[in-house]
């Protein structure tokens, strides 16, 4: 319902129940404020937004005064301005006059408002209070004397993060914002309080004292570390990205970004950036120029093609490469005559890839996740893998949705969780089959072919019944396969069962993929069995597992560090080492590439190239380079274009990345993926496996080469640890204590690590983070033997 109000003489229609400040904001009438924030609850404690309302005796706070029919509001009348100026004076009483040494100076809401409403000279001659700074960890810097107690950060913790870490302790003049007991804030969205803080009390720690707002230029870009594709602004000074801040996009990230998207970019300024092309000659790395390097690549690949055949050439790329890069890379390899291209570096089961959808999509919009009334999330540590999708599901859960988890890492969630089933990875299919069995029973539907035989031994537990009931009873349900499910050795069965469950409950089936651009990779044809836009891939090639097993003669790597990015590190490193020719298009001089590559071409990370990422919901988001590439680095799409030309392959005449994108975009047209997968009869399900199982987790700050080089993120508690993580129960069974060394053996290899207790790990399992030294000797989710030493 609408009401008519008048603000500063302008008649306007406003939603009944809206606050005066919202109506004014919509009209573009600026009312000063500190505590009000459109995404947070109303506190009305700063009093800065006092306005005059006709027939009201005293000025009223615009943020907490609902509009009513015929209301007349004056935001700039004498009465309003006097009230605002008085509040300003009170707020400044205890605020230090230290703008010249404050990091917020120049982009400070208090400074701006004080310019308009403050007095020239303070009348406060008494002593100002001083508040001790707090140590909130490696990401957020504090200067608590500057705090004006707006409590935005406190409300953010309670309402958005769901984890109350900050609070207001003490009373009156002794009130302080902090954690009371010193501790680092731990939430994956914690950095957002930096943007929320209207003063210089909470600032960006790694960015501290690097530049003033007016010394930097702002360029829009897209986050490159998860499938959400958060909208960012990159702030550039001295031709370097100095920080990332969120750019509002209600449909994608609202006004938030994850800490990984805010601080991860640090890696692009890492010291080990590759700045010039390098060639390995007689085992020695030598710097060279681009022409020689590209000739070297062309000659090397040409030689392999003529002596061993083109099918001895394969290409792998990071799932966070741009659409343009992947489109050109697959065209280059296919142009040479080989079909061996893949981006699914950690995936292990490719058996049903022909039945896979056009691209693994969320199956709904990101915004839609907030409105589901039941969600089953399979194989995902969603808070760490896609923090903003977790945030959307949290909103749904607070609204009463049954959000349920089934996986091998028992994370904790800051919302009511209807079920959290944590099992040995080898039992994951069994558990999902249990849910399917419960559903089939409840719906009295005949099971699909082969299900009954395979699921004969599957016991339907109370959890299965509850999950089935919640999904079936929901009008708007979703079943989501997460990153861990996609890496699971029996992905095909998980996919098949999830599809069956989705079908039986009329739920939307979705994927939460790895990297920034897995969807784009499928569309660009960076998969061996399909060309661009899902066309018949000609010539057909092998998926990564086969490519590594076959030990090809030549590999082209784009943005891949084989010892860190591949699921099977051992196979990857062996294949690379045995290959005759390895070309690395890389932003970094990685030790592993120095070991196995024969030529390293410096390419630009996402901040230095134009490109496009397609997020999980299928949204194409293009961006321009925010800074010039460092050293002699070049955007990878340009390098590939020139390589195509040098090797006389057709279809490399593009003048801009937009042309590359547009060509693919035209080919894709309006094609949408249908995530439903054909049923295929599964293998018998295992309920109680023998022996111990390794659980693998890719730490949130290890997902790509850039974030691995972000010092700030590596100092957080989410950084991976060199340890064998087991639950209390498992530790007792093994008779080991925290800190004691254990030996883990598998297939003749043995590695030792210290034990650490971690309640997230299911019984009978040992969690070893991916990429830890020695971890490559253990299969990501297979049996191993463990003994204390």
């Amino acid at each position: 319902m609408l009401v008519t109000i008048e603000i500063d003489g302008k008649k306007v229609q406003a939603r009944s129940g809206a606050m005066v400040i919202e109506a004014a904001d919509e009209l573009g009438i600026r009312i000063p404020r500190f505590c009000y924030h459109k995404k947070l609850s109303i506190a009305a404690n700063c009093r800065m937004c006092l306005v005059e309302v006709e027939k009201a005796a005293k000025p009223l706070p615009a943020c907490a005064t609902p509009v009513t029919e015929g209301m007349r509001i004056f935001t700039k009348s004498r009465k309003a301005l006097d009230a605002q100026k008085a509040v300003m004076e009170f707020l400044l009483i205890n605020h230090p006059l230290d703008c010249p040494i404050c990091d917020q100076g120049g982009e400070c809401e208090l400074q701006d408002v004080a310019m308009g409403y403050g007095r020239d000279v303070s009348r406060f001659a008494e002593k100002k209070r001083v508040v001790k700074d707090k140590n909130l960890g490696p990401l957020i810097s504090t200067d608590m004397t500057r705090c004006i107690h707006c409590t935005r950060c406190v409300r953010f913790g309670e309402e958005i993060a769901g984890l109350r870490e900050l609070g207001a302790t003490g009373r009156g003049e002794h009130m302080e914002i902090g954690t009371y007991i010193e501790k680092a804030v731990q939430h994956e969205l914690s950095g957002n309080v930096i943007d929320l803080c209207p003063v210089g009390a909470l600032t960006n720690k790694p960015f501290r004292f690097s530049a003033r707002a007016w010394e930097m230029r702002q360029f829009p870009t897209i986050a490159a570390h998860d499938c959400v594709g958060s909208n960012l602004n990159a702030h550039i000074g001295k031709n370097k990205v100095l920080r990332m801040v969120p750019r509002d996009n209600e449909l994608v990230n609202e006004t938030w970004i994850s800490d990984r998207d805010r601080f991860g970019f640090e890696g692009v300024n890492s010291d080990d950036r590759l700045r010039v092309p390098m060639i390995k000659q007689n085992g020695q790395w030598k710097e060279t120029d681009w022409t020689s390097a590209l000739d070297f690549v062309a000659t090397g690949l040409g030689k392999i093609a003529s002596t061993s055949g083109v099918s001895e050439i394969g290409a792998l790329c990071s799932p966070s490469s741009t659409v343009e890069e992947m489109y050109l890379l697959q065209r280059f390899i296919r142009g040479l005559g080989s079909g061996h291209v893949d981006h699914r570096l950690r995936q292990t089961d490719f058996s049903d890839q022909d039945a896979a959808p056009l691209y693994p999509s969320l199956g709904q919009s990101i915004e839609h996740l907030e409105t589901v009334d039941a969600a089953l999330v399979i194989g995902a540590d969603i808070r760490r893998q896609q923090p903003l999708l977790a945030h959307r599901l949290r909103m749904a859960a607070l609204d009463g949705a049954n959000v349920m988890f089934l996986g091998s890492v028992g994370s904790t969630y800051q919302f009511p969780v209807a079920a959290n089933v944590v099992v040995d990875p080898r039992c994951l299919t069994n558990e999902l089959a249990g849910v399917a069995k419960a559903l089939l029973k409840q719906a009295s539907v005949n099971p699909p072919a082969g299900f009954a035989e395979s699921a004969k031994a599957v016991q339907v537990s109370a959890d299965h019944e509850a999950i089935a009931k919640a999904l079936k009873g929901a009008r708007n349900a979703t079943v989501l396969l997460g990153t861990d499910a996609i890496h699971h050795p029996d992905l095909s069965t998980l996919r098949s069962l999830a599809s069956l469950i989705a079908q039986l409950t009329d739920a939307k089936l979705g994927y939460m993929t790895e990297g920034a651009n897995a969807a784009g990779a499928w569309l660009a044809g960076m998969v061996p069995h399909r060309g661009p836009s899902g066309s018949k891939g000609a010539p057909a090639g092998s998926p990564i597992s086969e490519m590594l097993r076959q030990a090809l003669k030549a590999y082209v790597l784009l943005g891949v560090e084989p010892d860190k990015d591949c699921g099977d590190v051992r196979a990857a490193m062996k294949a690379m080492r045995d290959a005759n020719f390895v070309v690395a298009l890389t932003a970094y001089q990685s030790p592993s590439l120095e070991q196995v590559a024969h030529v390293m071409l410096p390419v630009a990370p996402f901040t230095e190239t134009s490109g496009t990422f397609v997020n999980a919901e299928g949204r194409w988001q293009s961006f321009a380079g925010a800074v010039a590439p460092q050293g002699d680095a070049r955007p990878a799409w340009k390098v590939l274009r020139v390589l195509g030309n040098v090797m006389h392959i057709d279809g490399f005449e593009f003048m801009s990345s937009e042309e590359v994108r547009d060509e693919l975009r035209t080919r894709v047209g309006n094609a949408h993926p249908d995530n439903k997968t054909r049923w295929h009869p599964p293998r018998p399900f295992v309920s109680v496996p023998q022996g111990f199982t390794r659980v693998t987790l890719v730490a949130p700050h290890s997902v790509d080469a850039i974030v691995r080089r972000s010092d700030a993120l590596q100092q957080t508690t989410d950084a991976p640890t060199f340890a064998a993580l087991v639950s209390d129960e498992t530790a007792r069974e093994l008779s080991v204590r925290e800190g004691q060394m254990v030996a883990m053996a598998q297939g003749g290899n043995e590695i030792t690590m210290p034990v650490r207790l971690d309640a997230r790990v299911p019984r009978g399992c040992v969690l070893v983070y991916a990429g830890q030294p020695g971890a490559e000797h253990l299969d990501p989710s297979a049996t191993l033997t463990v003994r204390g030493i």
Partner: protein
Amino acid sequence: MSAQMQATGVALINDASRADIDRWVAKYPAEQKQSAVMAALRIVQDQNGGWLTNELMDAVADYLEMPKIAVYEVATFYSMYELEPVGRHKICVCTNISCLLCGSDDVVKHLEGKLGIKMGETTKDRRFTLKEVECLGACCGAPMMQIGNSYFENLTAQKIDDIIGKLD
């Protein structure tokens, strides 16, 4: 939450205190357990000899299933919660307007002289703590003080000596 509860220091709250807290919890709707936080803090403070440790506040947070910081906020806001050890007898002297007009300065001076400590301090033998407080709502009996759960009004030097003399 329940697994977390077991893992933390809820055990620090003894059975008698727990029964007492449960009586307060029962007064509120089941999903608003945290309404009992003030009573719970008072109960565990009494259990602990008059002051709250961080561990006890954490225990209350876990017991009432609320964020720890929310308990710290309450405990630091109200002056009746002590976050440092106090003497066996906490003497709270009102120095607010009515008591001030009726001579609370003399009460303070007498107590400080008699016990040899300043406001906010504790005697070496840990018998007494002196604390300056705001209005306790007994203006008609000003000047006044509170020791333990009792109010003492219309104070004079003689009366203070008598009261202190009777304490162990």
